[in-house]
């Protein structure tokens, strides 16, 4: 496939692996913050291949995984209201709230629809004027423009029965939070390629200066990732802290300014609760007052109480890179994709799901 298979070139990958091995004088700790990258690193055996030279740990790369339990409980309660349809992405409906997931709510009569795009939810609203359609808007900066476009379309169509439950999160504040966590081990970041397609990479320059940690923007194919890892290792070995872009075909310094303008027209940066992290300052978006009538959190009364649940799941520690998925005591024992205890095992972008799917055999000792 054009611009895909070329970046899976086996001989180039082998050479890059050897270069990383040759240049690393010690085992460096690198964190990726994109579920797509986590999956590729595990799927193609890159993590195992480089095990002695690079410790690849996985950050909060999955927006579905970090969506707060309280918001899921709210979405569940909305789906059970008469004449209300909750629409969201397939992964989101399987993530457990404090009692149920949206999928379980559906089995109890809740009205839940899976959509491929937020604009599909606008079409559902236009076709069902007797129902309220609530789009559960999860995603990083990559997805925020799609939700913003859906809201702009609904506004232009004058739809009174469409709203969104905003759950969009921003990657950079989470990286800052990770750097400030006690015991943080991250020495360099592989920045999320498609987030950077939208935001650009200039935003990482102050971050790199403040935290003295190299950041390399990479794509998702094996050769992209290996090129990014090699650049991280080179910078760490030379004591250089800078931002480098190894995904030039999709990412430029300024990013996609049309997409940024659409986000900024509809959203403002706001604090947000991240599952496993707590409240992250500037960690998400809220709708601007001009679009407040599309905010489901304002349109509908929040009449649900979240209950604390005891669980063996250490999803929060997995998403902050403190442990790897197989070090969680629940991994593969009580927690599987068919019967997940935590969000990283549910979502197709979750780190636990990646290990379970591609590297499930050897369990490590829990920490």
């Amino acid at each position, binding site marked *: 496939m054009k*611009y895909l298979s070329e970046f899976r070139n086996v001989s*180039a990958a082998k050479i890059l692996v050897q270069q990383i091995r040759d240049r690393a004088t010690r085992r460096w700790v690198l964190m990726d913050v994109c579920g797509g990258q986590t999956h590729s690193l595990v799927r193609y055996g890159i993590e195992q291949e480089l095990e002695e030279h690079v410790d690849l740990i996985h950050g909060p790369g999955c927006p579905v995984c970090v969506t707060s339990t309280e918001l899921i409980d709210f979405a569940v309660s909305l789906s059970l209201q008469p004449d209300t349809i909750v629409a969201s992405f397939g992964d989101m409906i399987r993530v457990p709230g404090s009692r149920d997931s949206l999928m379980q709510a559906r089995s109890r009569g809740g009205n839940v629809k899976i959509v491929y*795009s937020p604009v599909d939810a606008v079409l559902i609203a236009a076709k069902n004027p007797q129902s309220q359609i609530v789009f559960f808007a999860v995603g990083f900066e990559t997805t925020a*423009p799609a939700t913003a476009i859906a809201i702009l379309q609904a506004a232009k169509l004058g739809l009174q029965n469409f709203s969104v439950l905003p759950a969009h999160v921003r990657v950079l504040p989470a990286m800052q939070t990770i750097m400030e966590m006690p015991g943080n081990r991250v020495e360099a970041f592989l920045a999320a390629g498609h987030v950077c397609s939208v935001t650009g990479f200039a935003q990482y320059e102050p971050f790199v200066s403040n935290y003295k940690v190299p950041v390399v923007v990479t794509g998702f194919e094996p050769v992209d990732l290996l090129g990014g890892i090699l650049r991280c290792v080179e910078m760490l070995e030379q004591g250089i802290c800078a931002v480098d872009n190894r995904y030039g075909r999709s990412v*430029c310094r300024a990013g996609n300014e049309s997409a940024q303008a659409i986000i900024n027209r509809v959203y403002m940066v706001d604090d947000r609760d991240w599952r496993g992290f707590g409240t992250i300052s500037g960690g998400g978006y809220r709708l601007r007052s001009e679009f407040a009538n599309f905010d489901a959190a304002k349109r509908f009364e929040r009449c649900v109480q979240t209950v604390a649940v005891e669980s063996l799941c250490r999803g929060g520690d997995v998403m902050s890179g403190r442990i790897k998925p197989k070090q969680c005591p629940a991994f593969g024992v009580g927690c599987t994709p068919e019967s997940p205890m935590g969000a990283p095992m549910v979502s197709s972008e979750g780190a636990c799901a990646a290990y379970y799917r591609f590297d499930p055999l050897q369990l490590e000792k829990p920490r």
Partner: protein
Amino acid sequence: MPGRIVRWIDRDPTFAKAVVEFAGVSRDVHMACVPDATVGQYVIVHAGIAICVLDESEAHKTLAAFKMLEEVDDEIPQ
């Protein structure tokens, strides 16, 4: 996966839409974030929306760098 723009359907800034082909499969994609994209260019699509136009010259530069890596490797006696 990058998809190739086959034809524009709608140029309205809010409802912009084009037919995009992915490995032989065509689908409608929302184009509001890439209003200047032209037929034949490749776009990256996320959640039904094109989020960027693929820079083909940058892609070829990267591929040329891989090629050079392989050539240099061939010259080194094993």
